[in-house]
């Protein structure tokens, strides 16, 4: 018999938000809500979307799991492996490189102990991920953490301030449909 004990479930608040979003599209086009629902799923389940979470998304949208897998693997924002409490997305594209993104990446690797593309830092706090242009080139170099942009990270002081702020975040910031932010999931990798 299939076990249901480990199946992830959306919170009531998230379920209501998903239904609000699905109403934005024609009734027979519920699949349109794929990307917004994947974003909600990633925020609900510790910053990444496991195969089980993707199956849940398929359930909620009334589509086949493969339709979710092929999308989640196409778009770079969805993390398909467990991550640390904070995923630091470092822009590496030309305009940021001209203003020191390579140095920023090396600096972040040194102080967090994590490596770009590798597992989270040993304390489980930080995952480093290089991303392409974040459309904030005039404020380079840039790091995005969830919905927050940290700009002009061209001094050690600016980087320290960002990391201090993140270290103090016990919960991730609340999303509009939530009363409180969820606890940041601890890395289990």
């Amino acid at each position, binding site marked *: 018999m299939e076990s249901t004990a480990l199946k992830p479930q959306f919170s009531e608040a998230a379920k209501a938000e998903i239904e609000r979003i699905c109403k934005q599209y024609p009734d027979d086009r519920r699949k349109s809500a794929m990307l917004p629902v994947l974003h909600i799923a990633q925020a609900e389940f510790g910053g990444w979307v496991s195969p089980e979470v993707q199956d849940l998304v398929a359930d909620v949208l009334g589509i086949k799991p493969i339709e979710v897998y092929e999308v989640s693997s196409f778009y770079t924002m969805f993390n398909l492996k467990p991550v640390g409490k904070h995923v630091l997305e470092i822009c590496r594209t030309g*305009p940021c490189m001209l203003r020191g993104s390579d140095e920023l990446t090396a600096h972040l690797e040194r102080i967090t102990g994590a490596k770009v593309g590798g597992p989270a830092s040993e304390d489980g706090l930080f995952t480093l991920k290089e991303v392409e242009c974040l459309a904030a080139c005039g404020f380079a170099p840039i790091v995005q953490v969830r919905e927050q942009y940290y700009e002009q990270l061209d001094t050690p002081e600016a980087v320290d301030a960002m990391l201090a702020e993140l270290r103090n975040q016990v919960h991730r910031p609340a999303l509009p449909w939530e009363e409180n932010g969820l606890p940041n999931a601890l890395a289990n990798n």
Partner: protein
Amino acid sequence: MGRKLLTEHINVEGIHTLDVYRKHGGYRSVEKALKTMTPDEVVEEVKKSGLRGRGGAGFPTGLKWSFLAKPEGVPRYLVCNADESEPGTFKDRQLMSKLPHLLIEGMITGSYALGANTSYIYIRGELLYVLRILEKAIAEAYAAGFLGKNILGSGYDLDLYVHPGGGAYICGEETALLESLEGKRGNPRNKPPFPAVQGLYARPTVVNNVESIAAVPVIVNEGGDEYAKIGVGKSTGTKLFSACGHLNKPGIYEIELGLPVEEFIYSDEYCGGIWKGRDLKAVVAGGSSVPILPKELILKTATGEDRLMTYESLSDGGFVTGTMLGSGGFIAMDETTNIVRNTWNFSRFYHHESCGQCSPCREGTGWLEKVLHRLVHGHGQMQDIDLLVSVAKQIEGNTICPLGEAAAWPVAAAVRHFRDEFEWHVTHPQEATKPGAIFPGKLVTA
């Protein structure tokens, strides 16, 4: 100082709220259009304005609107392309986060002109925080009766929604965007059929850039002819430029089209010159996809005319000595910049962002990145330089969407104008690969 048609009030305290936005003349175009104009009259004003698509292609917006198929009983859509991802471009993010009601006003007036009753703003997923700002502003607009049923008693209904992407440059291509809005991978569609006939959910659809839609209110308020008086020739109105790279004052500047490039770079009113007292080496004037130009050719055309910030002047000389206005992503590079490394960085970007559908792009962008990588790291050979040009040529024109060209053009232009710097990486690999190495040769080969 030029007129600012879009951003005049961008720094007004509270301008993101409906009340303050209204106090500064906001939503007048909705009242004017819905109460005193027919939809076709609105389209006519946009045609007269000469407004050209601000996302990069520069196609006349009014003409695009007039192509929209209008079969009886079939819904049609206006979709705003807010998937701003072209390296060097960051104007739409600023515009939407600071002036959300300007975009919403343009969406309402534009949707009315096109006869759309449901419209979407497709915003790149990284900008979820801007989506929250837009959704708050949309809720205010519903409460004030500018959205929903029977807007301002006109009998016109409109629902407006914001839809996030998931991180994919290709979704800025309009048919990839529509696929993505349908919940699929962002694979561009074969054309025809064009979106004007079969777009979102196979229904007639217009896709416009944020800045194009944000220009609609002023065009409706002041009239297309008035708008067209600003600018030079077929480059009418104002344009937002995203200035970045090695400038003293990077940022967003709204300029009247026709401003000399030299004034834009060096005047304190705009970018304030090159940082650290250095000399300018090169500029990518319209986002990473357009050809790079060395200092001499970005300031003056090959015939010695002042280069102006217009569609025509920037493309003067074709790709031999000119470039394109593109999205207005203006990337300045100082004399210490390693052009080969920068070209490799952009090639890595296109390889990463290729959707993989067309072999010339999927494989070609990979080859460009690989060959540039070995040149940057001192393992290149002289024939690699021509190999780059050859690969670029084989991508161009052989793909479903323009990402192929966007990947090929910057490489071809870099080799064209900075060939001796590429050769230096082959002849002096140890010197060229040292951290902070600066090409000692003359700056310009054109």
